[in-house]
């Protein structure tokens, strides 16, 4: 269990066997806030990022254990972020969360190295399973 300084809020009552640091990247504020809350309730530490650029600026300093990445964002899209991480040799597990069901998007993201491709609205159980998978991978 790694303790981190910085802006990651500590989970107060750890529920799971491990506490993960999770970055939530989504331009939609209500979604960001809600998913971060859910992760806290599940016992993890989480922080929200409003854009791909914001996340890319900070991930090297406070490296998360996993990234929840929205696809459709202004500026850098989810795919752009994936590519940037890959180019930087990040080896960060990425779980895509998206409201979009454009054909071919899923394959593209998996190709780029995403561990899971989840559709919004996110179900808690599916999300936590995906996180387990991401860490295990």
């Amino acid at each position, binding site marked *: 269990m790694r303790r981190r300084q910085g802006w990651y809020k500590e989970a107060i*009552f750890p529920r799971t066997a491990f506490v993960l640091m999770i970055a939530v990247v989504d331009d939609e504020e*209500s*979604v960001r806030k809600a*998913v971060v809350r*859910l992760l806290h309730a*599940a016992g993890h530490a989480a922080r929200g990022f409003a854009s791909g650029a914001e996340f890319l600026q900070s991930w090297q300093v406070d490296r998360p254990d996993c990234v929840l990445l929205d696809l459709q964002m202004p500026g850098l899209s989810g795919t752009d972020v994936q590519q940037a991480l890959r180019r930087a040799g990040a080896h960060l597990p990425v779980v895509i969360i998206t*409201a*979009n069901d454009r054909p071919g998007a899923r394959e593209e993201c998996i190709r780029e190295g995403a561990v899971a491709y989840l559709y919004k*609205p996110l*179900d808690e159980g599916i999300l936590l399973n995906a996180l387990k998978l991401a860490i295990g991978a």
Partner: protein
Amino acid sequence: MSWVTVVFSMAASASLTLALIHGFIWWRQRDAWVNLLFSLVALGTAALAGFNLAVMRAESPAGFAAVIRWAHVPVWVIVLALVGFVRLYFLAGRTWLLWTVCGLRTVSLLLNFLTGQNLNYREITGLRHVSFLGESVPIAVGVPNPWMLVGQLSLLAMVIFVADAAITVWRRGDRRLAAFVGGSILLFVMGGAVQDALVFWGVVQWPLIPSLFYVGLIAAMAYELAGDSLRAAQLARDLHAREEELMLAVDAASLGFWSWEFARKEFWSTEHWRSLFGIAKAERLDLDYFLQHLHPDDRELTRQALVEPDPNNSRYQTQCRVLLPDGRMRWIASQGRIEYDRNGKSILLRGVSLDITHVKQMDLEVEAHRNEGARLSRAASLGEFSSGLAHELKQPLTAILSNAQAAQLFLARDTYDLEQIRDILRDIVTADRRASDIISALRLLLKKSEFQRAAVDANQLINDVLKLMRNDLLARGVLVVTELADQLPSIHGDRVQLQQVLINLILNASDAMSQPTEKPRVLTARSRQVESNIQISVADTGCGILPGDEEKIFEPYHTTKPQGLGLGLSLSRSIVLAHDGRFWAENQAAGGAVFHFTIPKWKGEP
């Protein structure tokens, strides 16, 4: 056989006949004053002929003098009636001259009875006999009456009056009337006067026969009046023929004729017009009764136009609904023109009415079709950016679900922070409201609705539509730029249909930029005020409109998209036109196309 008797008897009877004929004409048509005056002239001439004959049978100077004295009475009648006739027939001649003539002649008549034996002779001393028409007739010898001058002056004045009137008529352009009637009056009057003078001064050995000259005169006048009657008869025939033709045309066009007299507040109308309004032929037609046949909403406007016409507008144009007795409703279009009197006051309104029910019905059908087409097009284009909308809905749903599940997890613990739970519930409510808004906007777009006008803010319209399509545009990588003018006045329009137009334009713009390219994909939405219209423009940086296609793109079923219906632009233009606006497109110099449309601003605004 006494030729004198024959000639003068014929003269008298001819004149009497003409007098009776024209007197009868006046009797039948009381405003035919010209005929009455002519009749008096002829009557006078008949009497004068009688007196002429009597003079030639006179046996004593006293008898001769007496006849001449009484002969002045018909002369007076002739002179006054003649100048009156000229005045009325020619509609010319100076009034003061007319009164002068009448005055002088009346004074002559009085002098005739008051001075000497008669106007011409103070005293007739003897009779000379001359041969006339194979007989021996007397002529007077005696002392002339100086007051005869007055009589001569009256004749002179009459000649001047008639000449002046004739000149006026000649100048007016009616040369025939001036020459013929004016000329013959002058000729015969002067001829009579000349003969009179010649006999009086003893130059010729002839009796006084003025009546024969006057017979010539009334013959000419009668000829003219007869000509008038013939012309009138011909005109009546022509008029009848024209009327028949008119009625034929009116029947073919199913027009109803009507006229309305402002002063008397009375209608006149053809049978067909009455049937248009469902009024039975025999019923009396006054204003209130007529208005009752109209639809209640149309009554006031019609009543106003008929009772208080607009002084600046001589044209009358309305469409009104008529409720027929059997319950049906009819649309009637009426058009008319106001006739004014010399002072500019409206006296008569004459017009036609036409049944336009079927036209109106078609108008309503067209509008219904257009609304339906707009709705279908909305549904179709909604399908085009439905993925964007679905995306829009999924965001608040995600927020709700994750918040709710977080709350469940929190509550599962032994101790929990109530404030945090409250926070979560607040966020859930907000997200739900957001979802409801999106769904309401969707429902509004898809709802079958009639054309409804309200005050719409152009900038708000643009922003609403952009918000709705935000995700779609994002997915296509389109950058949106807005250049919206401040403080634009509201436009008067159907919000949903105008949104429809904007959605269509934005979709088209995105499609135009859908090819992969180096150029940045920029969609610009602009609003500004141009005179009394609001102009909205949507510009793209795409491939532009093919030269020559600028008008074709507006045609229905024109499309360059594989799945396109091709109705978007033609429907959008139809919507803009229904708002009394303009819609056009052009290529931009820097590349790409721009579509403009204008909507008039709402005049209800202060």
